[in-house]
């Protein structure tokens, strides 16, 4: 096996790799199992592809199982997901039954033996029914549970309370539970296509291909076309800035074909943009990782003007690329954007415009803030920190068990 951890030596904070190796010694010989619902696509799978071999390299015998399901199951879990994130859904008895049936079937097929099992998100949560005696099970919640639809949460909660611990990405997502709830922020992998260093020629080539000239400062927001991301507010902020500063705005997001509200928001954005040649609305596929990377690196300032946000890994990605972020004062943005240090938190298009102008007027401030942003991301939001906390969790739970 090619050692992966050493690749992070010059990227992670000083001494991190040695620290991880020493920490790994304390968890050596333990076995860990991750269970989720997809091998590819989505942030959870993306990070597991790296974390699983890294844990194994550190001596933790780590496996990753993926549950399989029927269309009814996936429809049910998609509705659960939306309901738990606060969008009202109608969930039928058949959907609950399909969910439980599918979990039972998976429990028969999967090898669930491990000292510590981490079950990700609601889809496989009911596997707890089949957990082997003497093992420690953790429910890892990646979604925003701050305002769940109560009936759906009550259903899921009956399973969650039987775990040994739960892990949330922000304190505000935690629920009233009789088990310990830990806080572990998500992370980005600095070696992935979305975050690795790019050569200037590579960036130029990609921007050319996307039709975005680099003749003036670029303001960028990367996000779905979703009202909570406030893309229309971003256009308003750009218009205010444009009165005095020549710049471009790039709104890069996913296609919205399966999401009627997304199509509506996209139409609103296109309406707001009118025929301005300095505004670029880019519909990119989910695989456009290098394109997003290049856009973030080419931008002068990155915006994430959300009015509601989970953790906001697009903010992390921008900080890692040394870009100050002007973000809405909500959710995980407030953990990442330290006002006046790594960017600015705002509550209105006017606030965003004010700070965009300040940064465009003061290139030295912009550069200094960008350096702070990168260092902050290096210490707090890279995969090496994530790895450290998972090891810590294994050690802590094993200590409690013995």
């Amino acid at each position, binding site marked *: 096996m090619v050692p992966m951890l050493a690749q992070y030596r010059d990227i992670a904070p000083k*001494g991190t790799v040695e*620290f991880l190796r020493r920490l790994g010694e304390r968890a050596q010989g333990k076995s860990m199992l991750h269970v989720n619902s997809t091998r590819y696509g989505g942030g959870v799978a993306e990070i597991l592809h790296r974390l699983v071999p890294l844990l194994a390299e550190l001596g933790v015998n780590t496996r990753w199982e993926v549950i399989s399901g029927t269309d009814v199951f996936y429809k049910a879990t998609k509705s659960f997901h939306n309901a738990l994130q606060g969008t009202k859904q109608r969930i039928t008895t058949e959907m609950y039954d399909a969910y439980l049936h599918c979990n039972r079937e998976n429990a028969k097929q999967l090898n669930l033996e491990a000292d510590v099992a981490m079950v990700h998100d609601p889809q496989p949560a009911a596997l707890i029914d089949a957990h082997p005696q003497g093992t420690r099970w953790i429910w890892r919640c990646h979604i925003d549970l701050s305002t769940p639809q109560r009936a759906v949460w009550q259903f899921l909660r009956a399973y969650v309370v039987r775990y040994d611990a739960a892990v949330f990405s922000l304190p505000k997502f*935690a629920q009233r539970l009789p088990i310990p709830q*830990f806080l572990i922020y998500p992370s980005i992998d600095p070696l992935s296509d979305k975050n690795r260093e790019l050569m200037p020629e590579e960036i130029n080539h990609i921007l050319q291909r996307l039709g975005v000239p680099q003749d003036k400062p670029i303001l960028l927001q990367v996000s779905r076309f979703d009202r909570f991301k406030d893309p229309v507010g971003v256009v308003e902020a750009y218009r205010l800035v444009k009165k005095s500063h020549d710049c471009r705005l790039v709104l890069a997001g996913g296609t919205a074909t399966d999401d009627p509200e997304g199509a509506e928001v996209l139409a609103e954005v296109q309406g707001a943009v009118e025929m301005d040649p300095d505004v670029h609305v880019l519909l990119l596929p989910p695989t456009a990782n290098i394109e997003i990377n290049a856009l973030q690196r080419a931008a002068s300032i990155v915006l994430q003007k959300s009015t509601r946000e989970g953790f906001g890994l697009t903010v992390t990605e921008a900080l890692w690329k040394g870009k100050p972020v002007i973000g809405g004062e909500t959710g995980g943005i407030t953990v990442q954007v330290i006002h006046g240090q790594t960017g600015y938190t705002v509550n209105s298009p006017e606030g965003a415009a004010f700070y965009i102008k300040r940064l465009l007027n003061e290139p030295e401030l912009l550069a200094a803030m960008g350096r*702070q942003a990168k260092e902050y991301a290096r210490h707090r939001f890279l995969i090496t920190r994530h790895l*450290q906390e998972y090891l*810590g*969790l294994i050690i802590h739970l094993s200590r409690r068990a013995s």
Partner: protein
Amino acid sequence: MMDYRAKQPFRFFSCMELREILGKRARDEQRLLELIEEAPADSIYYHTHSYYLRHPYTQSLYPNDFATWVALHAQDRILGERLGVLDPFDFDDIEELRGEIMAIIADHLDHERAAASRTTDEPFEFVRSHVIEVDLGIEVMTLREFRDAVSRVEVGAVYNHLCEARMRKRQLWGDFAYWLSAEMGLGLPDLAAQVVQVGRLGLSLEGMRERIVTLCDQVLSAS
């Protein structure tokens, strides 16, 4: 001096924190005061000390979570300033520190009654940490070796020997100063006293590390 060898080596231990969400939330200053009173000592420690580990090279608004939340989210700059100036290195015991924080908030609320119930959408979330200590396998016997190790170890080791040692392990001088001054260590009480002062300067952990290395360099170059 450069060659003086301690009778007992200094061994570096780093640490990490596993954070536990306590599910206690304050949306206004009155509730914050009540929850500070009942929170476990580990949680008061986390919100007043772990800041250094979470912001090892840079500083946010104030060096403790209570002050930052009060100023940013409860929009109370006066109380933020009064809490922000608190120096955790002034206190030898977490209960003394808790008492001081409560006295400041209570006094403020006596005079600013409107502030007590002004609510915010971003509540203060109480967290506590479980510290996991890790032996880095680095032992030093001389000041030169000590200086070199301090300059290169993972920053958690600086936190462990300066902050953790004081409050949780009751080594009030911190491990570095204790070893530098001890007869079994290097027997350098003047340097040790200066190292103790480093904690009082309001620096980030990286700033503290840099200052300790500079102090060692001064002693080494004078000898």
